[in-house]
């Protein structure tokens, strides 16, 4: 009797604790992301990996993922150096200089028709929900071969920009990089009409049997897309002001100007 009560008490408790959802990763594909800056005539690069399962998928920057692995090692080292409790300042030059990737992670829950995005502004972690019905694709009759796949053209407007996507019926996954998807086949190439943002499929492969997709928002603060947009904009336009207004950390610059203001020009303008 007592055992039963014990069980009844704990089962809902266990379910509540894990804010995680799991899926088996079936396929893994990646895109080269190029962002052309018309002011500096420079092309910034990133690499997005999409892991696709039975009813969900996740898209993340492989640069950020690699950085996180490297940073974990350095964090440990730095903690050993300064972790005596007396040192209040950490010298950022103890860290390596690394290429920066997107901090965004886009989870798609096909069974719930919902997108969950986790992101970071400096060290603050946030998540928000978005709809999966973001595009009104118009299919055209144009065809092209991309990475060996027969592709067909589709166009859609999305939050302030017009996009052209080339998708293939040969891979019946209705997915693409970041929030993009909803076509009858995998997106192989995608760009906005000013060719400022380009995504190109560079690999498609079957995942290992034991790979999992874990949707985890533990430690992330719930917010809305609009609020996160404003926070990121504030940070981009005045990095030092943003950091110091948060009150937790104070950063003193000794050299360099890599914290200067940049123009905030995200994919989603609205």
């Amino acid at each position: 009797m007592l055992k039963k009560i014990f069980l009844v008490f704990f089962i809902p408790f266990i379910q509540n604790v894990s804010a995680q959802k799991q899926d088996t990763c079936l396929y893994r594909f990646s895109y080269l992301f190029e962002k052309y800056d018309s002011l500096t005539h420079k092309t910034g690069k990133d690499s997005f990996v999409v892991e696709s399962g039975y009813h969900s998928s996740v898209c993340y920057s492989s640069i950020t993922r690699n950085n996180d692995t490297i940073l974990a090692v350095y964090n440990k080292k730095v903690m050993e150096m300064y972790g005596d409790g007396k040192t209040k300042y950490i010298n950022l030059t103890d860290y390596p200089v690394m290429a920066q990737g997107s901090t965004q992670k886009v989870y798609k829950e096909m069974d719930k028709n919902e997108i969950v995005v986790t992101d970071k502004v400096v060290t603050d972690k946030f998540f928000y929900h978005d709809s999966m019905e973001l595009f009104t694709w118009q299919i055209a009759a144009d065809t092209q071969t991309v990475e060996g796949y027969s592709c067909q053209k589709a166009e859609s407007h999305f939050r302030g920009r017009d996009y052209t996507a080339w998708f293939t019926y040969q891979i019946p996954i209705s997915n693409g990089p970041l929030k993009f998807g909803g076509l009858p086949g995998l997106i192989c190439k995608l760009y906005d009409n000013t060719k400022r943002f380009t995504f190109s499929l560079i690999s498609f492969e079957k995942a290992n049997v034991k790979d999992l997709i874990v949707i985890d928002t533990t430690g992330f603060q719930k917010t809305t897309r609009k609020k996160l947009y404003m926070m990121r904009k504030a940070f981009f336009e005045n990095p030092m002001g943003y950091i110091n207004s948060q009150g937790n950390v104070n950063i003193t610059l000794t050299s360099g100007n890599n914290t200067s203001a940049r123009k905030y020009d995200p994919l989603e303008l609205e």
Partner: protein
Amino acid sequence: MKAMLLPKKFFFFAFFLSLTFYVHSQTVISGKINNDNKEPLSSVNITVSKKNSSLILAYSISDKNGYYKISLQTKEDSLLLSASALNYEREEKLILAISSEYNFTLSPKPTS
């Protein structure tokens, strides 16, 4: 004289009405996708193309209850309706280009 004009106008109007009706006639194809165990399959791509072409004219993706609906305007007499999903055998049906219901039962691909 006026009584004679009215029918003429009417026929003129009726002629144009029928014309617009003809131009905008839509074919609506809908149905349900199941697996071998009669369970609904979601995220299945259902596409409509011309008989001998892989070019997609219209499409739908089945919802969580396995339902799909495609609306299109076409001059073709017959169309190729295909259902494809990862790890399932692709199914194709040659159909008449008229509004109708088509259900699919997809079998899993043999695991390689």
